[in-house]
C-alpha cells in the first residue's frame, strides 16, 4: 500500500511540488542564516585558532576577545617565561592603522607584529610567497581579502607596497588565514616593523603567546599564570570560546535566530497545511481504501512515507541550494570563511521534520476519523 500512497502523491503534482518547494525554501533559509551565524561566530575566534604553534594566550585580565587590545607591560612576558612548564613565550603586537595603496586605495588595516626571533604566530598556510619573508624590515604578508581590497582584480606582485603611518611596507606574499570578524585587511609583519608603526606607544605587547612543555597540561599552566596576578591566561580553545561568547552575547545571534525561526514556522506551516489539504482532498479515495480493508496502520504508514518523501526531497534540494550559495559566496575574499557545518544541515532538516511531523500526525488523525461509509454517498 505504500506504493499506492506514493503514486497518489506523485499524481497530485501541484501539491507535491508546492510541498517540496516549501521545504526546500525553509531548509535553505534556515541553513543559510544558521551558516552565516556560525561563520560569524567562528570568525570572532579565527585569529586565535589560526595561531597553531601556541596553546596558551595570556592577556590583561579585562580582555575578552582578539579585537580588544590592552597593551601589556614587557615585564609580563618575563613572568610568563618564568613559569615552570612553559616551553616558550613570545609577544604578539596588534595595532590598527590606515593603509594606502599605490593606486590610491585607503582602508583601516590590522597589523600583527610577530616576534622577530621565534616567528610564533606566523601563518602556516600561504597562498603565494613565503611567510618568513617578513623577517626583513618593513615587509609584510597580507590576507586574501586585504589584497583584493587594495589591489582589486590584480594578480599578486611581490614588493608592491602599502603606505602605513608614513612608512612603505612591501607586501611579500598572501597568507591563507581565516577571514577576520572585523572584515579589515590583516597584515602579518615582524614585531620590529609593527613597533615602528606604533610610535608613541609605551608598550609593544598586546598578547603573549606561550607553549606548554611536554608533560604539562595547558589548563594547569593557565591556573599557575593566573595566580601571578594582573594576567589572564587561557588555552586557545578557552580564549576562542570566550571571544565567541563575547560577540554572541551582543544580540546579533538573536536577530539570526528570529530569521531561522521564521523560516522554520513558515516552512512547516506551508508544508503542513498543503499536506493536510492533500489528505483532505483525497478523503474519498482514502475512504474507499478503508472500505476495501486497508487498516489504519497501513494508512498511517502510507502518510508517514508520503511525508518522509516530501521532507527528504525538500531537504536535499534545500541543502543543495544552501551549499551551492555558500560556495558562491565563499569566492568573495572577505567571505571566504563562510561554511555550512553538517551539524547545521542535519539539525535544520530535523527541526523542520519535527514541526512538520505535527501536521503529519494531524493528517493521520483526520484519516482515522474518516467515515468509510461516506464513500457510498
Amino acid at each position, binding site marked *: *500500500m505504500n*506504493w*499506492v500512497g506514493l*503514486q*497518489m502523491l*506523485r*499524481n*497530485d503534482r501541484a501539491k507535491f511540488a508546492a510541498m517540496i518547494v516549501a521545504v526546500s525554501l525553509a531548509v535553505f533559509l534556515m541553513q543559510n542564516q544558521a551558516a552565516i551565524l556560525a561563520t560569524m561566530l567562528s570568525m570572532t575566534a579565527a585569529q586565535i585558532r589560526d595561531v597553531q604553534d601556541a596553546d596558551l594566550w595570556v592577556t590583561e585580565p579585562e580582555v575578552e576577545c582578539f579585537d580588544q587590545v590592552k597593551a601589556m607591560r614587557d615585564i609580563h612576558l618575563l613572568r610568563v617565561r618564568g613559569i615552570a612548564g612553559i616551553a616558550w613565550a613570545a609577544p604578539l603586537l596588534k595595532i590598527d592603522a590606515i593603509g594606502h595603496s599605490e593606486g590610491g586605495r585607503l582602508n583601516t588595516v590590522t597589523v600583527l607584529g610577530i616576534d622577530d626571533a621565534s616567528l610564533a604566530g606566523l601563518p602556516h598556510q600561504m597562498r603565494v610567497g613565503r611567510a618568513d619573508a617578513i623577517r626583513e624590515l618593513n615587509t609584510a604578508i597580507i590576507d586574501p581579502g586585504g589584497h583584493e581590497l587594495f589591489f582589486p582584480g590584480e594578480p599578486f606582485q611581490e614588493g608592491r607596497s602599502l603606505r602605513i603611518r608614513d612608512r612603505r611596507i612591501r607586501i611579500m606574499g598572501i597568507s591563507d588565514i581565516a577571514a577576520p570578524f572585523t572584515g579589515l585587511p590583516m597584515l602579518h609583519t615582524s614585531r620590529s616593523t609593527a613597533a615602528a608603526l606604533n610610535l608613541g606607544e609605551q608598550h609593544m605587547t598586546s598578547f603573549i603567546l606561550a607553549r606548554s612543555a611536554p608533560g604539562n597540561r595547558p589548563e594547569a599552566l593557565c591556573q599557575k599564570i593566573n595566580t601571578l596576578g594582573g594576567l589572564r591566561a587561557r588555552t586557545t580553545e578557552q580564549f576562542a570560546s570566550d571571544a565567541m561568547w563575547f560577540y554572541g552575547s551582543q544580540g546579533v545571534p538573536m536577530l539570526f535566530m528570529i530569521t531561522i525561526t521564521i523560516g522554520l514556522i513558515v516552512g512547516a506551516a506551508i508544508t503542513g497545511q498543503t499536506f493536510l489539504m492533500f489528505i483532505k482532498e483525497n478523503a*474519498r*479515495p482514502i475512504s*474507499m*481504501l*478503508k*472500505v*476495501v*480493508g*486497508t*487498516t489504519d496502520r*497501513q494508512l498511517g504508514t502510507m502518510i508517514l512515507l508520503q511525508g518522509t518523501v516530501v521532507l527528504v526531497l525538500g531537504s536535499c534540494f534545500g541543502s543543495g541550494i544552501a551549499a551551492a550559495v555558500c560556495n558562491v559566496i565563499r569566492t568573495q575574499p572577505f567571505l571566504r570563511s563562510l561554511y555550512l557545518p553538517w551539524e547545521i544541515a542535519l539539525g535544520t532538516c530535523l527541526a523542520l521534520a519535527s514541526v512538520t511531523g505535527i501536521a503529519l500526525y494531524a493528517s493521520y488523525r483526520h484519516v482515522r476519523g474518516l*467515515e*468509510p*461509509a461516506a*464513500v*457510498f*454517498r
Partner: protein
Amino acid sequence: MTPLDSSAVHCTGIRKHFGEDDARVEVLRGVDYTVRRGELSFLVGPSGCGKTTLISVIAGLLETSSGEVSLFGNHLARMPHSDRVLFRRSHLGFVFQQYNLLQALTAAENAAIPLLAAGVRRREAVDRAAALLDRLGLGSRTAAYPRQLSGGQQQRVALARALVHEPRLIICDEPTAALDHATGEAVMELLASAAVHPDRAVLVVTHDSRVFRFADVIAHMDDGQITHVEPGRRTDAATHLGSSRLTNPSA
C-alpha cells in the same frame, strides 16, 4: 442445509438512528433481511429509504443501534474493529456508483488494490488483476489511467477490483446510476455473468428499474423497512447474452 447455513447475509431486527433527541432520525426501523449464497439480490426503493445505510451496516462500516448482522455465520458487531477490517478485506468486494478509482493508478493497479491491501506483492497483484481485466474484456486497457477510460470501462475496472480477491459477498451501490442505459445494462450483464457463484452472494442496491430483470430476488425497501420481497427474472439466456456482449471493450 438450514436456511441460516445457506445465507450469506442475515439481518435480524436492524435498527439504526442518527442524532439524538429532537435531531434523532430513525433510518432503519427493524430490518429483517436475508441474502442467500449464489443469489444476485437487489435491494430497491426510493431515495432516502435507508438502502445505503443498510448496506453500510451489512458491510460493517456502520454500527447498528440494535439488531444483529451475520455474514456467512460471522457476527460483525461482536468482532473487534481490526478483525472487522480484515474480514471485510478477505470476504467482501465493493462496487460504487462513482467507481472511486484512484486517478494515480492504471486500470490493473486499481483492480489490484484489495490484493495490495492484503499484502500480496505488487507484481503478482497487478498480474492477477490484469488477467481478470482481460476476462472482463479490458485486456487491452490494463495500462490505461481512469481518465483515459469511458464510464462503462471504469465501472468494469471497479468490478474487477471487487472480484480480484475472490470475495464471498459483493456489495454494489447503484452500479449503473452514472451510466447510460446501454452501458448500464452491459455492466449488469457482466456482473451477473462474472460475479454470481454458488458460494458467493451479490447484493445490488439500485433504483434503476431497467436492470431489475437481472435479479434473482428483489427486496423492496421503504421508510427504513423491507416492505416485501419478490423473485426476480434473471435467466441463463440473459446471462449468456450478457457475457458475449460484455467483452466488447468499447462498452
